[in-house]
Structures are given as structure tokens and as C-alpha cells.
């Protein structure tokens, strides 16, 4: 069962074939991104005289640098806030069995089912009235609330499986509940924090619908909205568009390949709860 046989080789070949098919779009993406617009040969033929003009042009015309900064600010801001408030909230939710605690937990879990489309339009009006539309603060505020149910759910599940002995000891030794949380509970939550961090950061970075609503028509755009605007503007110039797509993908893939171990186990692990 553990020997490399001919059938294992067959499986290896089949899996690599699948990987080639999955990778085919990436090849075309890179191939066309380095191709001059004047070259109209088949998209699958390797580009003979590669050029980087598309990249410089896309970077200058698409305001992609600003979009990258905005996306980074929104992602970091929202994720830090949601991890802080959700882990803190999970502590009484997991430890207190009084009726108010269980009631609140059910209320938060309701948020897992409510699709944000229901809240998005009334909230759009509120954001407008508060003058937050078109600012990245609207997005940070939005994600900080939107991601509370899922993040709290992860933390509560994890905390319930943790023994209380350490925090009890800290409390007996005279810690306040806040100190017990900060210095005893929070460090033990590290594995689930990594999971929540990865899943939330990817969700916020990639979200398109919300910034489309709250930022459209303004100069402050996140990467997905900037890309959509770029495609709308240069509709037929696919070489330029592909260069912009590559620019938007590179930071994500660099982070992914550097942290792949934590990211993959984050995706797989959150789900064990």
C-alpha cells in the first residue's frame, strides 16, 4: 500500500494533467499580459516579443497603487477590529451559562444565516446620512460588524473545548477578568485566531459587492472595484486589462506562497470549529 507502483505513477500523471488544465488560464493570462496590442496571433501561442509596456501603462492609468493601499487599510483595519471584539465577546458567551448569554449567542448566530443583501440597502441609506459613503471608514465599519457572527462562532466553539483551569487560577491569583482574558485566554486562542485572521482577511480583500455599493463613483476604491472600473474603461484592450489583473493578483499570491502552510491550515482548520 505504501510502495510506489505503476498505478501510483498513473495517478501521478493524471494529477499533473489536471494541474496543467487548471493552470492553463494562468498561462494565457501571463502570455497576453506581456503581448503588444498590435500582436493579434492566437492567445495560446507563446508571445515572441514580450513587452512590459502594458504593466507600466495599467499601473499609471488605473490608479492601482492607491487601490492597493485602500484595500490593505480596509483589510487590516476590519480584521483587527473584528478579531478584537469577537474574541472578547466569545469569552462570556462561552463561559457564562446564564440565559442572557445563551440568548445573545443565538442572536449572533442568526447573523450567520442573514444574507447581507438584506441589510445592504438600508445600511446604504444610513451610511449616506452619516456622510460615510465614499470613504473607507464605511467599509471598515461594515466588515467589523458583518464578520462578527462568523468570527464569534469560531471563538466560542474553540473556547468551549478549552479547560477553565488556567483562567480560574489567574482569577484566584487576583487578576481582573480583563487581565485574565488578555494574558491567559487570548494566548490560548492563537490557533483559532490564525484561522479567523486568514478567512476574514481573504473575504475582506476579495469582496466586490460592498465596495461597489459604498465606494462607487469616488476616488477611494479598493482593488476589486478599481479592476472592475478598469475593465469598463478599456473594454477592448485586453492586453492592458490582463496586465492590470496580474498586478492585482501578484500581492495576493506572494502572501499566499510565503504563508501557504498557515493559510491552507487556516482554511481547513476553521471548519473543524
Amino acid at each position: 500500500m505504501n510502495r510506489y507502483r505503476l498505478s501510483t505513477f498513473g495517478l501521478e500523471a493524471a494529477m499533473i494533467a489536471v494541474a496543467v488544465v487548471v493552470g492553463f488560464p494562468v498561462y494565457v493570462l501571463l502570455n497576453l499580459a506581456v503581448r503588444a496590442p498590435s500582436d493579434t496571433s492566437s492567445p495560446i501561442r507563446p508571445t515572441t516579443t514580450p513587452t512590459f509596456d502594458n504593466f507600466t501603462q495599467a499601473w499609471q492609468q488605473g490608479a492601482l497603487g492607491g487601490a492597493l493601499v485602500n484595500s490593505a487599510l480596509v483589510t487590516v483595519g476590519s480584521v483587527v477590529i473584528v478579531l478584537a471584539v469577537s474574541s472578547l465577546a466569545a469569552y462570556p458567551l462561552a463561559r457564562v451559562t446564564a440565559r442572557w448569554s445563551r440568548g445573545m449567542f443565538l442572536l449572533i448566530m442568526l447573523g450567520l444565516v442573514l444574507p447581507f443583501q438584506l441589510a445592504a440597502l438600508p445600511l446604504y441609506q444610513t451610511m449616506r446620512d452619516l456622510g460615510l459613503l465614499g470613504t473607507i471608514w464605511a467599509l471598515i465599519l461594515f466588515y467589523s460588524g458583518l464578520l462578527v457572527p462568523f468570527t464569534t462562532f469560531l471563538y466560542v466553539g474553540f473556547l468551549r473545548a478549552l479547560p477553565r483551569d488556567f483562567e480560574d487560577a489567574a482569577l484566584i491569583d487576583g487578576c481582573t477578568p480583563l487581565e485574565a482574558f488578555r494574558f491567559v485566554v487570548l494566548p490560548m486562542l492563537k490557533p483559532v485566531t490564525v484561522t479567523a485572521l486568514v478567512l476574514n482577511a481573504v473575504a475582506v480583500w476579495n469582496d466586490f459587492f460592498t465596495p461597489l455599493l459604498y465606494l462607487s463613483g469616488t476616488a477611494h476604491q479598493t482593488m476589486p472595484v478599481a479592476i472592475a472600473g478598469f475593465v469598463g474603461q478599456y473594454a477592448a484592450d485586453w492586453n492592458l486589462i490582463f496586465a492590470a489583473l496580474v498586478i492585482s493578483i501578484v500581492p495576493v499570491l506572494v502572501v499566499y506562497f510565503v504563508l501557504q502552510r498557515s493559510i491552507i491550515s487556516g482554511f481547513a482548520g476553521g471548519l473543524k470549529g
Partner: protein
Amino acid sequence: MAVAQDVKIRDRVVARRRRRPNAPPWWFMAPAMLLFAFVVLVPSVRGLYYAFTDWDGLDPDFAMIGLGNFTKMMDDPNAAQAIWHTLLIAVSITIIQNGFGLLLALGVNSIIKSRNVLRVFLFAPAVVTPIVTAYLWRNLLGPDGAVNSLLGAVGLGSLQQDWLGDPHLALWSIVAVIVWQFGGYSMVIFLAGLQSVPREIYEAAAIDGTGPVRRFWSVTRPLLAPAFTINLMLSIIGGIKLFDQVYALTGGGPGHATDTISTLIYKDAFTLGEFGYSIALAVILTIIVAVASTGQYLLLSRNERAAS
């Protein structure tokens, strides 16, 4: 002396009782609850209310029209179609993406040499922004795109299609793009499940002379129940809420051939200004998500219990 000793003990007992581990206070959840109420709870309740009005998103003068938006939906062929597309996409993605993901997981869980590289590579599309991959595919699937070029190059020119422009194909093209992007996501979750299966169980089954198919069905499948629960839940809810890929690939077209509830909500609200009607559609979406997730939860948790 004895009295002093007693007093000391009593003081110590009182002190300990006072310092007894006290439960974390309720206000720890206040920041999270405030954010959650502001962003999700209050707007959702207001949304529920607006669904029964003719609000246009701007005019403060609007009227209660009872079930007007919902009866209007009955007569709106676009709404019925969008609901149908949404369900069709959700069910197709759930079946195809998880089938594909399970096969990939079994493949990379074997002893092939490329398994570690393949895991990282096959999962990579799942972290890339969906709107970006969708624009990439919009070009690949175009009449002069790379998919048709490839078919021509390998002598399958007769299969060339206008993948996104043909109303009968466009929906399936969208499903294919999503499976391409998130097959690796399902794989990673199944893989975590597979790796939690103890090796000894397989060895015992192998010693008993169980074939690979039987081994999968009787040993692996029941132990994968938690991974199935998570994967099915994620793909069905993701499929029901689908917006980005449809927006970028077809914009709901050609005609309304690929409109989902989410794209229709967006169009009705922001291009037609029918906020009330649009929110009524969101209510329908909420009901579908709620029914699907509760149903699936009940069904799968029963299976999980049966399997364990």
C-alpha cells in the same frame, strides 16, 4: 490563641470567597454586539419593513403597500427566472465542485511525489479575488478566446462555442468557472478530513482483503462526514448568494439568461431605483438561505451521528 486562629481561618475563607473565580462580565460582548446590531441586525429589520413599501431609496415619502412587492414578483418573469437560476447554480456547484474536490483530495492524499506541490498549486485559485478571475475567464471564454483556440488547436474545432453569449451555455460556463476556482477549496477541507482518518484502519481493512472501492465506501466515506457537512454548507450558501462572478462574466445576460437573485437585487435597486422591490427579493433570498442551511444542517448532523 484558639480564637485568633479561628479568626485567621475565617478571614482567609472570606477572602477566598471574595476572590472566587468570577465569571467574565456581560459588557465584554458590548463592542461586538453594538457593531453587529448597527451593521446587521437593525438594517435587516429595517429591510424587512421596507420590503412591504414602495420606497425608492431616496424619497422619504413612501407608502406601505402590504404584499405588493411579493405579488409583483409573481408576475415578474425575471424574478422567477432569477430564483430558478440561483437554485440551479447552487445545486450544480454543490455537486460538481465537491465531486471534483473529493477526487483531488484523494489524489493528493496518496503517495505521489508531487502531492505537496499540487496541494499548494491547486488551492491557489481559491485565494484570488473572484472578480479578477471572472474577468480573466470572460476573455478566455469569448468567441476568439483561448478556450476556443485550444479546441481548434487539438482538432476539436467543432466544439467551439460562444460560451458566454449562448443563453443555453452561459449559466454552465459560470458554474465551470466557479468549480475551477473553488475545487481546490473543497479539496483542502476533504484532505483535512482524510488526514484525520487513522492509518491503522486502512491497514486493517487492507489485511482483511478489502478492495479500494469498498475501502473508500465503508471506511473513508463515513469518517469524512464532518468534511462533507462543511463543504456542502459552504458551496450551497456561496452558490445561493452568488454575485461577483455573474456580474463580471455575463452581467446577468445574455438577456436575463444568467441573472441570479443577487444580480437582480443590484439592478433593481441601483439601475431601476426600486429599493422596496429589491429588498423584497432579498427577503426571498434570506428565506432560501435559511431553509437550505437548516435543512442541510438537520440532514447532515443526522448522517454524522449515524456514521459515528
